[in-house]
């Protein structure tokens, strides 16, 4: 297993073990279209002394100081590339098992990213602003609607009579526009800025 983070070959600093992944769909997702994915690996250092291991651990930690970078995961046996995308580095541990085994140290790393499938069918909403004819405003698609509620209220002339002076409806919606998470954060931020400046 070969792993590069921010172009630093972690596999050359130590021996990589694991590769366990976890997919956690967002709780408010109307379909399993958005999930936080985590990848956990152990990086083992087996040197002649604690000091020599410490040098290797510090080199790895220096690479991990960049909080978000491209992670590349390659199976060297088959040359298959399993991952090549921007990820965020999560919490990581340097456990001490208390056995005094200074020749074998390791750190546990966790990388995280979001995977979302924008093609999954879901119910969306549309909005078209009223304009004076013959002008017609464009119809906007409001992305993925995850919540919809509707309410009713009425006012009566007298609490003792049924006749209404008026009745109103109220709707509340919540939803999301999903970004392409295969693109780096800088690209997504730029797209968001463009959409803000265009109104």
């Amino acid at each position, binding site marked *: 297993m070969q792993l590069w983070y921010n172009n630093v070959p972690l596999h050359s600093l130590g021996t990589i073990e694991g590769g366990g992944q976890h997919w956690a769909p967002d709780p408010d997702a109307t379909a399993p279209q958005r999930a936080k994915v985590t990848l956990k690996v152990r990086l083992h250092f087996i040197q002649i002394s604690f000091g020599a291991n410490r040098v290797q651990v510090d080199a790895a930690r220096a690479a991990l100081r960049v909080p978000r970078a491209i992670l590349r995961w390659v199976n060297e046996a088959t040359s298959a590339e399993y991952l090549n995308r921007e990820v965020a580095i999560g919490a990581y541990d340097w456990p001490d098992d208390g056995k005094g085994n200074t020749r074998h140290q390791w750190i546990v790393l966790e990388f995280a990213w979001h995977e979302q499938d924008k093609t999954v069918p879901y119910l969306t909403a549309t909005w*078209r*602003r*009223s304009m004076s004819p013959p002008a017609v405003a464009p119809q906007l698609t409001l992305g993925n609607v995850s919540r919809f509620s509707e309410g009713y209220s009425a006012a009566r002339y007298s609490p003792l009579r049924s006749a209404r002076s008026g009745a*109103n*409806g*109220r*709707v509340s919606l919540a*939803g999301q526009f*999903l*970004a392409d998470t295969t693109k780096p954060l800088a690209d997504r931020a730029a797209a968001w800025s463009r959409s803000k400046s265009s109104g």
Partner: protein
Amino acid sequence: MTEINGKDGQLVYGAFDRTVRVEEFSAEASADMDALNWTLTASYSRYPDESTGILAEYEVQTNEDAQTGQVSLSLSGRIVAPDAATAHSIYATLKGA
């Protein structure tokens, strides 16, 4: 935001298809910019029908001055109609009665 900023508009969600007035709209980008979360609240009239409905609330008071014996009649209230001409017509009817 530009499209939301208007007097009203047509909102369609499944079987819901109405002209509504937006009361509140907010949008927030998530920290890692992977989603733009939004909420929208809008209202509309169910009754009366805004295109044809007429609402007239009025009060008539009679006052008599005890010293002079002068009697006065006052009419006050509110008329809601689709247009001004209809409202004036209703007012004239009330005044005539």
